[in-house]
């Protein structure tokens, strides 16, 4: 198990699906993420990067563009089969 490896979303290579563990953001900035389905436990997958290098993330069939500063606040966990 790699529960708390301190991995952040920008460190994950493109096309790898990971699970969101924690959001390190103040509540007022977290809320929109939550409403858009970015919740602890959800599956995230960076599908590409914007020309400026910000991740474009697929969550539940929606594409979200997230500034990399914000993506850096998303702590994630690799799928267990990969960690093994």
């Amino acid at each position, binding site marked *: 198990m790699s529960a708390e490896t301190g991995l952040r979303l920008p460190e994950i290579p493109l096309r790898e699906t990971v699970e969101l563990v924690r*959001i390190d*953001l*103040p*509540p*007022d*900035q*977290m*809320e*929109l*993420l*939550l*409403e*858009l*389905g970015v*919740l*602890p*436990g*959800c599956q995230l997958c960076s*599908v*590409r*990067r*914007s*020309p*400026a290098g*910000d991740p*474009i993330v*697929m*969550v*539940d*069939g*929606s*594409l*979200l*563009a*997230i*500034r990399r*500063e*914000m993506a850096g606040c998303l702590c994630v966990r690799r799928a267990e089969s990969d960690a093994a």
Partner: protein
Amino acid sequence: MAARSGRSDGYPSHVDPGPGGVLEADDPRESAPLVALVGPPNSGKSTLFNRLTGLRQKVANYPGVTVEKYVGAVRLDGDRTVNVVDLPGLHGLSARSLDERVTRNVLEGRVDGLRAPDALVLIVDSTRLETQLMLAEPVLELGVPTLLVLNMADELEKRGGAVNEKMLADHLGVHVARTSARIGQGLEEVRQFLMGVADRGRLPSRPCPALAVEEKGQALPMLDTFVERRRRVQEVAQLAGFTQPSTSRLTEKLDAVFLHRVWGPLVFLVLGMLVFQAIFTWATWPMDGVEALIAGSGEWLAVHMADSWLRSLLIDGVWAGVGSVVVFLPQILVLFFFLGALEDSGYMARAAVIADRLMYRVGLQGRAFLPLLSGYACAIPAILAARTVADERDRLATIFVTPFMTCSARLPVYALLIAAFIPEQPVLPPLLGTRAAALLGLYILGALAAIVTASLLRRTLLHGRPSSFLMELPPYRVPSLRSLLLRLVDRSRIFLRRAGTIIFAVTIVLWTLTQIPQSGSGPPPVDTSVLGRMGQFIEPLIEPLGFDWQIGVGLISSLAAREVIVGTLGTLYGVQEPTEGSFALQEALRRDLDLGGAVALLVFFAFALQCMSTVAVMRRETAGWKWPALQFGYMLALAYAGAYLANWLI
């Protein structure tokens, strides 16, 4: 036919039915029940609204377009009617931003002149059912009869997704309909629900249903609320046999280009050039047509009317003045056609992503890009659209710089001066000619001013860190021609109404001022008329910019609205050279202005806040005169300095 109501005024939460609006006292519809249309951004609310009411309403394929509220009547079988109000798209009811607060107020019946809704239609994009259903729970808690509309069902099926709406209805305890509003499928079920609402009539007046207040300020309770809700939503979706559709192939392929490190920004630039080139090339023949029509009708009048003051007023004043503005309608329509197509296709959201880094550097929030972009049409809806920007400092910075974005009222002024002073030559054939390049340059100049100003503001008066950027990228969709054309009709109406009211009134006043004081034999030479003296009075002030008194009169009159200057100059030159066709405007300008003066005038218009409506809206949106006064003074100073510099350099 129903009239659209819900106008730009309405701060903070006031729906004004307006004169001749939908809620007149003797109108049978007055007693009709009210249905509110709610849903996340980009779920197709506005499309459904248009389909139901047959009204024109701005529909765009990017989040955050509907900030004004639109009310329309839906006529049903057997002469039954319900009123429908279209609300801003929202992801939650946290009342974080101004437009979420507006939506809450409407749902809770706290809006003057608008009753609490008797039923709700909650519309969601069925291809993203799980996320979108997160909104269902707080909405259903209101306890008002609700229809859940699973929209974009055609897309869901095409991409191999599935959902059983009957099971979903059972588990949620509400009616569920399945639609594809864009192609008009499944609307019968929605109409049937509305029939039921009409038959039941209005709900008895009741205490305001209060929305659950989500725990604010504390991360954990909020997080728990969402996680819990999410679990319940997933459970329901699963029980209803929801299968997530595969990702859109088209979207992936297009994004691979439009968001490509190299191609992305390049496409962005080429599209920009294309739009400006089209404004000059596509619009040529319809402009010639409109021009011929106005000149022809003016000549017909001249022949058929006796020589009198009325003939002079009509031909030299109104025809020359209003006519010279109306000529620019085709160019404005070309601009709106492109803006509309880019919005509806989903490209604009990608453009926002490409522009975001720049926004971040100057300290603006990424969400501010969309309001700023709509500033290319008109600053007023753009300032209202900035209500989607949650942080107050972010919002103030955004609306302060919005009038720098080149609104369509500047287009007639730019187009006139460019056509008069810049010969057409290829620059980047076939993509770009000198005229389009000049126009593009002016748009860039405005955008640069906005960027520099925003950056200054964020370092001084509105100090603070820019907040995060998070934006949904909707799937690409082929824009519907019907919706595009409806929007162009709407635009033409707005433009012609302005020409028929403001510009018409200004030309009459100006013409009158050129006719006094009357000497024994008739009107004075324009130089010695009241208007001429007024212009000469301010001439010393504008002489350093390379403008003569006639331009000065134009500048003063354009304080009402920018394009008025074109009408003013049309009238002024029309009076000076009566009966000579009213479209010698370009030649007359070339006589009065040299190139330096012309460029100075263009720069002046790029920067100055010559729009009283914008000032009024700014006052309302900032609840005071401080910001509009500062904005007006700052923009005027910048305009004067910029024009002076341009005239001195050239």
